[in-house]
């Protein structure tokens, strides 16, 4: 990588100052804590230098979502053989209906319910009189219409907590009556500061209402692992699973992309938890470690260097057979990796990338870009915590611009001034960026492409970055009669 593409710390610091000057004083002070550049001190200690997981500033156009999005949208929604009730008014379930692209195999409305919008559609009378009675009735109705469901989750929307409904009591009663798993989740959108608390609450619900209520029968094997926190967006978890199986591991549970309830119930029987999205499921891994003595390992299946590193790291938890298999797997894909790099690296080398995404990607994809010769010049998390930013220091270069819970205003200014070759963020950021003439890929939904995980996914990732940056359309933005 050429040095002139390295992030420019002084420029970035000046840019932060310039942006903050445009805020009212109070907001500038608040936002100032969330913007910085990555630095390493003389003792060699690196920091992103930002505060995180703090309330968003009103009126600045935060890009964040809510706890409901973190629970229903992220953690629970993909569990395919359960019906997930969006409990409250119609909107939340409507806007999140089929938007995460959590792929699965199954028959919708029969034994799988991922792409359905099931809601109690609260009316004014429910706000006034409470929704518990109707919730009971609704659970009965769902069991009649969807008899093959393995369970029901109740995803609370804002009003539930405000009107004092007791959804836990309903869950207990219905569980007793039907024997089926009923999971009440207190993920009202006003709780916490972002999606993040929703993940945590959803994790706790798995602990309390799945683990505590089930006694799975399972003949354990020495190589049983859970693949945790891969939501199978565009099919991500499948190439990941393929790699693990190829190295001789038995994936007994896949969470929660393409997951069945049985795979969740069985998890405490595994030997090791492998966690991809640390942010959204570290809680349940820590719980399984404490309660069931199951160690957990973070891994990263974006891009060949991280994949190889992760395969070796995972293998190191097992015996020599698995370790030898890991080397075989890495060797097996060497040809594919070389071909992909030969094809795309010359087209992408030296390109500057800005990211602004969710749970793990602001750091996890960085090395995949490095593999292609591209440089991350700015990155930030919608709902990261301090531990995310600490982990990020291992991934990004000195001087990289860091922005936590960035506002629309800040992001536009940063993009306009830095003029990266590519921005990776979400649907809300996509069109403003493209209008500026800056190539863009949605890095939540893979822009309707994917999978991006594993070696099979890396080829698609490389192709997609190339087609975004090297599209001929960018040269047509200026009318020829206006071109200088």
């Amino acid at each position, binding site marked *: 990588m050429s040095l002139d593409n390295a992030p420019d710390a002084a420029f970035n610091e000046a840019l932060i100052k310039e942006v903050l000057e445009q805020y009212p004083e109070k907001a500038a002070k608040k936002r100032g804590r969330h913007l910085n550049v990555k630095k390493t001190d003389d003792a060699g200690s690196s920091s992103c230098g930002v505060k995180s997981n703090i309330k968003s500033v009103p009126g600045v156009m935060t890009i964040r979502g809510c706890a409901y999005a973190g629970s229903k949208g992220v953690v629970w929604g993909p569990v395919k053989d359960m019906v997930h009730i969006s409990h*409250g008014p119609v909107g939340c379930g409507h*806007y999140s209906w089929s938007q995460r692209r959590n792929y699965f195999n199954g028959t919708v409305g*029969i034994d799988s319910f991922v792409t359905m919008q099931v809601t*109690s559609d609260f009316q004014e009378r429910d706000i006034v009189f409470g929704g518990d009675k109707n919730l009971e009735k609704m659970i009965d109705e769902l069991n009649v219409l969807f008899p*093959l469901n393995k369970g029901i989750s109740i995803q609370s929307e*804002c009003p539930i907590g405000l009107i004092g409904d007791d959804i836990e009591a309903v869950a207990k009663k219905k569980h007793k009556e039907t024997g089926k798993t009923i999971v009440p989740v207190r993920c009202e*959108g006003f709780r916490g500061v972002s999606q993040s608390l929703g993940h945590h609450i959803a994790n706790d619900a798995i602990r309390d209402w799945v683990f505590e209520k089930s006694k799975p029968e399972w003949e354990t094997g020495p190589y049983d692992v859970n693949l945790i926190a891969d939501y199978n967006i565009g099919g991500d978890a499948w190439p990941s699973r*393929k790699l693990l199986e190829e190295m001789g591991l038995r994936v007994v549970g896949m969470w929660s992309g393409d997951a069945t309830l*049985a795979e969740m119930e069985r998890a405490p029987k595994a030997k090791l938890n492998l966690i991809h999205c640390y942010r959204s499921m570290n809680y349940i891994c820590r719980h399984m470690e404490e309660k069931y003595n199951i160690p957990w390992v973070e891994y990263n299946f974006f891009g060949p260097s991280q994949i190889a590193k992760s395969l070796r790291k995972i293998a190191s938890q097992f015996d020599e057979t698995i370790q030898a298999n890991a080397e075989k797997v890495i060797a097996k894909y060497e040809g594919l990796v070389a071909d992909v790099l030969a094809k795309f690296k010359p087209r992408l080398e030296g390109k500057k990338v800005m990211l602004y995404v969710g749970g793990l990607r602001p750091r996890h994809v960085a090395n995949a870009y490095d593999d292609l010769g591209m440089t991350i010049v700015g990155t930030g998390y919608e709902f990261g915590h301090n531990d995310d930013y600490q982990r990020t220091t291992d991934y990004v270069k000195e001087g990289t611009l860091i922005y936590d819970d960035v506002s629309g205003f800040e992001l536009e200014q940063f993009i306009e001034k830095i003029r990266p070759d590519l921005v990776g963020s979400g649907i809300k950021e996509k069109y403003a960026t493209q209008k500026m003439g800056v190539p863009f890929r949605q890095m939540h939904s893979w822009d309707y492409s994917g999978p991006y995980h594993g070696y099979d996914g890396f*080829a698609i990732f490389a192709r997609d970055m190339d087609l975004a940056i090297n599209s001929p359309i960018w040269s047509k933005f200026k009318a020829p009669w206006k071109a200088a």
Partner: protein
Amino acid sequence: MPQSADKIKDHISLFKEPEYLELFATKKAQFECRPTDDVVAAQVEYTKTWEYREKNFAREIATINPAKACQPLGAVFVAAGFEGTLPYVHGSQGCVAYFRSHLARHFKEAVPIVADSMTEDAAVFGGLANIVEGLQNAYTLYKPKMIVVSTTCMAEVIGDDLSAFIATAKEKESVPADFPVPFAHTPSFVGSHTTGYDNQMKGILSYFWDRESQLTGTAGEKINIIPGFDGYAVANNREIKRYLDTMGVDYTFIGDVSDVYDTPSDGEYRMYDGGTTLDDTRAAINAKATIGLQEYCSLKTLEYVATKGQQTAAFNYPMGIGATDAFLMKVSELTGKAIPASIEKERGRLVDAITDSQAWLHGKKFAVFGDPDFCLSMAAFLMEMGAEPTHVLATNGGKDWEAKAKALLASSPFGASGQVWAGKDLWHLRSLLFTEPTDFIIGSSYGKYLEKDTGIPLIRMTFPIFDRHHHHRFPTFGYQGALRVLVEILDRVFEVADESDISFDLTR
């Protein structure tokens, strides 16, 4: 190995490769504990029966795949249609992330909206501090000409008073005292996005008309157009304006997103572009009349407008021959401007096209779902072409709408077999399509699940359209729009015919 650099396979083809099919089969057999294929197949068949339909229609609480969104979505859509206006939502921030994403996915445009991010403390103490700070930040950073405030259900449940809060924010100089901040309470647990549209439109008009503007006492010559919530607004508004310009009518199009949600790519991001000017909005109080293009998006608004002494008229989505005729004749009646020969010729060309093609549509059965106004005009247009609207379903349709839709079907022999389904959802429609099938479905992208399950082809004609690109950039209103609707329906009819080897005709 399934993947190669030469021919990179993404999800569309990768997961058909044998390695993945084997992975799926193993996962299913060893780890998933799903019901057996026989049990699944039996349930699939059972859901197609009348017995299942009866169970399905017996439910009282569960709402499954409803074709409606919530109030604030309609409110922010209204707000976006004004010059330099920033929609602002008082309440939880997650809702705003959803509205922005939802509209961006359909229009493929940036959708700037701010939230004031109320959290647990605001739930206890109320959201006054949020609105005071939020208005100041939004005003300073985004430099709007107007901020329009609506609410999420959180703010509504705790009973925040927008009028008092905004007044306090102005006292605290969050925004200048004379800066327009119209508002509407838009609880998600009442009505749907069409209700929110109505409430917010009334909120904006009453802000200007009751506080700022004066009735001059003599009605002007202008007419106002209020379009309603329309995913095709970008093209439809322009088409309506073309007609009005052609007729020489002086008008104000109130809440016009046509340029807002259709900005060019030329290197500049326009956060604000187009929209009804605030001056025009103020002056609109003195119009001669106001026409709502969608009755169920402007019930309260038109009632309010009438209190200002204006004539009002409401239409149900002017799509099709009769609906366009009625709209143009009303405009002509109100303004005294004749419908020119050029428009009459357009009409003639549409009638000509339908005459050429009607044989392919005569007697074909359609299920139509969508917003109340869309359903009415779509059903009416189908009947004009000799097709039969068999199921007409609006999840957000009420009793009035139901009566109106029934009367519409009763007005034509082609509606004789038609049934109206107010307040029902797309899981109800699934049962209807299995037990009383149609030849085609007309609706939004959400209809693709019905198409997959029932095998009945879907024609995408209404918001939201997420899985096809740019449909909304071409009009469905007026005679030209009707022609486009006709062609889309015909294309699907011919595609179905082409599925047969024998009937694979070159000429039709």
